[in-house]
């Protein structure tokens, strides 16, 4: 069992009073976790951030690494030639990371080495530049990404962001905020604030835009928010429901739920031309569309069979095919990055839990144990699922590894947090 806590500095927000702090707790770990030592870096004085500690935290939180506590480090080398592989091997440490942060003409750079103490090999050696000192945190995440990919063979996802919704207050006093934080919960920034609900944030594949649902003058609408400029465009606000935005993998289209033609159906909007295509036409509730990674299909929730279940449909339209048969209800599915499985909300005996459906075998495995878990989606790379959960402390975000072994909770000191959306990897 491992427990790590961070508290991010709250941003002071005029008029709202909401505290945007995300605190992360990790439990569990895979038995095959790789032992690794991230030795404190030699740093120039004006870099306050403990870069090696950020790298350590990233790797430890993934559940795939067992990091050596600093108090157990017998030596603290800062360059590869100072490493005594036998001494680390004797402590059961197969990999050692050493490094330093120095200045150069254009600002700062982090030079780090990953050394395999078993084979006595240098696996990685990089200089990562940073123009300003406040970019050092992202340099640390890049180091963690490189180590993760080198040792596990899949891209790291530490230099990503999480969008989520926070709500506080009750009734018409309720305030909603859309926030974006680093994947480790640091640097939460408020993207939008409203006295009306904010819902269903989702990232464009280039992670430059967020689409989300808001309400304005007694109507719902789907908005496109460009993060770099803060520009907000109201994309669609029909009579009735305007919900569940989902970008196609190439970013050219947005699947949505609209009910202006009498009941909720799935539509696909071409973002360049504005052309709208109705994908489903059924008197049941059709909602929560999600694209397959290749963009050829979509899954959605429909209660056309009586209870809500997951259906798949060709992106060009046609007949929908039911995919879920286990459980009274299955809702809000999304594909894994490899397209082989779906993560969804599975309901049985009044409990709502996160399920993983193997599309080849039809097997459904329950990953969480909350009474009211919802909004699941895969983190980039597909090793981890993020979702929202209801606990005695309030509504929190949580992650679970797809094998169900490593769990993290991300909670805010005040106010509920829900509807997490992990930004895509941009390579």
């Amino acid at each position, binding site marked *: 069992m491992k427990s790590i806590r961070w508290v991010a500095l709250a941003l002071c927000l005029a008029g709202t009073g909401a505290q945007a702090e995300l605190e992360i707790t990790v439990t569990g770990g895979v038995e095959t976790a790789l032992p690794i030592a991230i030795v404190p870096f030699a740093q120039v004085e004006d870099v306050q951030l403990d870069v090696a500690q950020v790298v350590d935290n990233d790797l430890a939180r993934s559940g795939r690494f067992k990091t050596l506590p600093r108090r157990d480090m017998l030596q603290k080398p800062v360059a590869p030639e100072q490493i005594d592989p036998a001494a680390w091997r004797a402590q059961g440490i197969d990999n050692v990371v050493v490094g330093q942060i120095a200045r150069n003409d254009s600002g700062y750079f982090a030079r780090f080495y990953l050394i395999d103490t078993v084979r006595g090999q240098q696996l990685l050696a990089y200089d990562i530049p940073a123009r300003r000192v406040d970019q050092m945190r992202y340099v640390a995440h890049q180091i963690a990404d490189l180590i993760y990919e080198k040792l596990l063979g899949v891209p790291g996802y530490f230099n990503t962001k999480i969008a989520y919704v926070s709500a506080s207050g009750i009734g018409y006093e309720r305030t909603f905020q859309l926030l974006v934080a680093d994947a480790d919960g640091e640097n939460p920034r408020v993207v939008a604030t409203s006295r009306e609900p904010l*819902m269903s944030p989702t990232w464009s594949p280039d992670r430059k835009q967020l689409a989300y649902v808001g309400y304005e003058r007694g109507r719902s609408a789907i908005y496109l928010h460009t993060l770099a400029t803060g520009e907000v465009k109201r994309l669609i606000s029909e009579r009735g429901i305007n919900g569940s935005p989902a970008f196609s993998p190439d970013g050219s289209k947005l699947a949505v739920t609209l*009910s202006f033609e009498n009941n*909720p159906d799935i539509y696909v909007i071409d973002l360049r031309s504005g052309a709208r295509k109705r994908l489903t036409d059924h008197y049941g*509730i059709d*909602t*929560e569309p999600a694209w397959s990674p290749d963009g050829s299909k979509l899954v959605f929730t429909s209660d056309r069979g009586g209870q809500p279940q997951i259906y798949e449909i060709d992106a060009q339209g046609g007949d929908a095919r039911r995919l879920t048969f286990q459980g009274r209800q299955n809702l809000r599915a999304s594909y894994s990055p490899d397209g082989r499985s779906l993560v969804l909300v599975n309901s049985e005996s*009044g409990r709502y839990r996160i399920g993983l459906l193997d599309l080849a075998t039809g097997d459904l495995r329950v990953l969480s144990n909350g009474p009211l878990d*919802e909004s699941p989606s895969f983190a980039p790379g597909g090793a981890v699922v993020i979702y929202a959960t209801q606990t005695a402390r309030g509504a929190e975000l949580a992650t679970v590894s797809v094998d169900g072994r490593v769990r993290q909770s991300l909670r805010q000191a005040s106010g509920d947090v829900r509807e997490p959306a992990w930004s895509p990897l941009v390579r």
Partner: protein
Amino acid sequence: MIRQLWLPVAAACLALFVAACGSTKERTGAEGAPSQTSEPYTDRIAPGPAPLEDQGFDTAAAAERALTTNLIYFDFDDTVIKPEYAGVIDAFANYLTANPTAKLRLEGHADERGTREYNVGLGERRALSVESALLAKGVRRDQLSVISYGEERPADPGHDEAAWAKNRRVQLVRQ
């Protein structure tokens, strides 16, 4: 014990005796022809009904009062309007037909169980169910608007059946 019972029983007997004596006396007096009274009997009858001009039943106020109940609650995963809300539907149908320029917003809500966007669908279905009931009573469609908030605006923030029952609702909001 016995003595304690005796006192009230004796008192009751005495009271009955006195009452009997009184009535006996009257009856004695009433024997034979009725005795003449000095004033005509009719004068003792209350005067005929007089309409109260200022305190009469105010139909408009009563209609207004009927609109204070503006919530219709639903069963889990259900959109059927229960018979107990027929009065609410009638009151608002009367109000809207009597005031053709009046507008009503039907806000559909769901409890927190199930996913958020599905619950938006469920909330809309409930609001449409109320809309249909009002249309059936002769309300014009352009007087009504429907919006669903799903589970986003709970009336009760709790996480139990009592809270959920308060949150599965359609709120009728006059514009």
